[in-house]
């Protein structure tokens, strides 16, 4: 009983943190969407991540960078293109094709050739996903002063994570009469303040999925959200697997130690 009170007290202290994730202004709270990767047993729906990659490349990448991800991440453990034929993701032929599909370009400004110019070459798996704009100023200039945020961590960088991203992408609607929108702004109740610079990026049939799935707005929104959830947390599956092993081990260890404790204290008045 005492132990329970101790644990409850501790958890109450930790529970404060739930309220510390501050309110997101006046925004609508997003609905809880069902995600395959949610919960202690959740794994990423690999096909959804693959489709989401396609959505990112064909729709989002024109404005949003993915600076922290390299092509090889797609082929690493837990990635959408993981393949047992290539345990080393840098040898993964499909990953290499994706890297090369961006054509010859400057991948690393610090790679200088003998003429003193940055080297222009085909991509390799080790290269990062290229950014659409060279720097923040050019990005803002091309987007009416607004900066399209980098998407590498977007699911972790927003309260309600994947639910928020999905709600945002599917939540565009006509502005209410009392909404003040500056030119170039759009109404989205899920965005703090309601006025977002991004035009609705998705619409039914916008692209053709490689696996033939029907590309409705909701489908693309869901797939790209799952892709971004993976991008924010590529080790999630390994983390949960290890978590179960650790908990099972500690549980057994706890039982053994408890029995040892009872044994030690068996004949002692306390």
């Amino acid at each position, binding site marked *: 009983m005492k132990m329970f009170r*101790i644990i409850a007290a501790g958890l109450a202290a*930790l529970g404060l943190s739930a*309220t510390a994730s*501050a309110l997101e202004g006046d925004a609508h709270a997003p609905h809880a969407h069902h995600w395959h990767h949610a919960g202690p047993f959740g794994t990423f729906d690999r096909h959804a991540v693959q489709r989401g990659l396609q959505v990112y490349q064909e729709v989002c990448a024109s404005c949003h960078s993915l600076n*922290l991800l390299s092509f090889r991440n797609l082929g690493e453990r837990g990635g959408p293109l993981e393949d047992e034929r290539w345990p080393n993701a840098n040898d993964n032929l499909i990953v290499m094709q994706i890297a090369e599909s961006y054509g010859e370009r400057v991948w690393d400004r610090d790679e200088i050739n003998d003429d003193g110019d940055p080297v222009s070459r085909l991509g390799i798996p080790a290269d990062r996903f290229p950014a659409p704009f060279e720097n923040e100023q050019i990005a803002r200039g091309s987007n009416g002063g607004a900066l399209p945020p980098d998407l590498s961590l977007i699911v972790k960088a*927003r309260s309600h994570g994947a639910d928020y991203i999905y709600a945002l992408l599917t939540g565009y609607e006509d502005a209410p009469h009392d909404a003040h929108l500056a030119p170039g702004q759009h109404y989205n109740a899920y965005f703090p303040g309601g006025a977002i610079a991004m035009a609705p990026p998705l619409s039914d049939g916008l692209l053709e999925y490689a696996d033939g799935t029907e590309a409705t707005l909701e489908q693309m929104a869901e797939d790209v959200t799952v892709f971004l959830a993976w991008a924010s947390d590529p080790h999630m599956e390994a983390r949960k697997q290890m978590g179960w092993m650790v908990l099972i081990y500690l549980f057994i260890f706890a039982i053994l130690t408890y029995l040892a404790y009872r044994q030690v204290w068996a004949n002692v008045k306390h």
Partner: protein
Amino acid sequence: MSGHSTYEPKTGFTRWLDSRLPIVRLGWDSFVDFPTPRNLNYWWTFGGILAVFLMIQIITGIILAMHYVPHEAMAFESVERIRRDVNFGWMIQSMHANGAAFFFVAVYLHMFRGLYYGSYKAPREILWILGVVIYLLMMATAFMGYVLPWGQMSYWGAMVITNLIGALPFVGDAIREWLWGGFSVGQTTLNRFFSLHYLLPFIIAGVVGLHIWALHVPGNGNPLGIEVKDTKKDALPFHPYYTVKDGFAIIVYLMIFAIFVFFMPNVLGHADNFIEANPLSTPAHIVPEWYFLPFYAILRAITFDIGPIDAKLGGVLAMFGAIAILFVLPWLDTSKVRSMRFRPLTRWFFIFFVLAALGLGWCGAKNPDDYVLGMEGFKFLYLAQFLTLYYFAYFIVILPVLGIVEKPKERPASIEAAVLGNA
């Protein structure tokens, strides 16, 4: 309690070592054959838990320091590199970030144990004061550590708290600029915070050594608050009785820790810290980590001038005062009785104190102008002000008065008598 040593080196080597550096004897006397009251409950296991978590933080921290780059252009990305590319980096980083939180949960439970059972009372005043020093060092360490990932909360939390120093009259601005090493939080600040964040835990370890030494002079307190009279009847050797009990408590605590590390690694943090620091854009709600929230609430509760002291300075003084008052607690509590088991009236005020501390934490997370549970007119600010008043009143008024006024319950003659009574 520090009586005659019972260590007898048996081999030639151990005798030789013992005559030159009696370190094994010290270990034996402190952690094997140390007489420990036989009636300790699980509230006494948090010391051991804290030692384990100090070790976890130091080990994971040293490893993170092998990969982290303390430069404003590279810090955020180096932490992401740890999470993504370093072998098991995601696990070590999660252990370190959540380890800090669990370190504070344990220290709060440890301190509340001390408040309830009178562990701070004579002859353990220095033990208590050393504990408050450790607590302060922990807070400084955690504050600087949180800046290192250089996210939005890292940067802006640092700006807010270091700006508070500017509230001090005359010397405030100079000290603030000295802390920053510049005109705002920046590269210089980040670099020195990294250096000090690495240093302070070792100072904590040193003070923990003093803390245990100060404990071992009188020996442990116990739930009855009665001193050990006969070590054979009232006490047991620390090993194996309390090594195994502490071991069990540590494992249970580690299980809860593992749930957060592996299944909810970010729930105690703030989403904004996954956005790289931007000096041009302040987040909508700047909130410190949860373990600072009660003090944050006290800071924001002072919204009025008190004579020559303006509200901002008043808030700073109240915040530091809330910690400083802990140093003099042994002399504020006038009761001759240690344990609140025998102080039924004071116990109620203690429970309210715990609720006030939790309530202040809740207020710290909220916008002061928001209404509590939607009740019109009842702002979080007012709740924070009421609870702050209670916090200080508990130490300055309630404990001194109740110690004199309350008639305590009858205490058992000895620990043994109480324990035999229980059997």
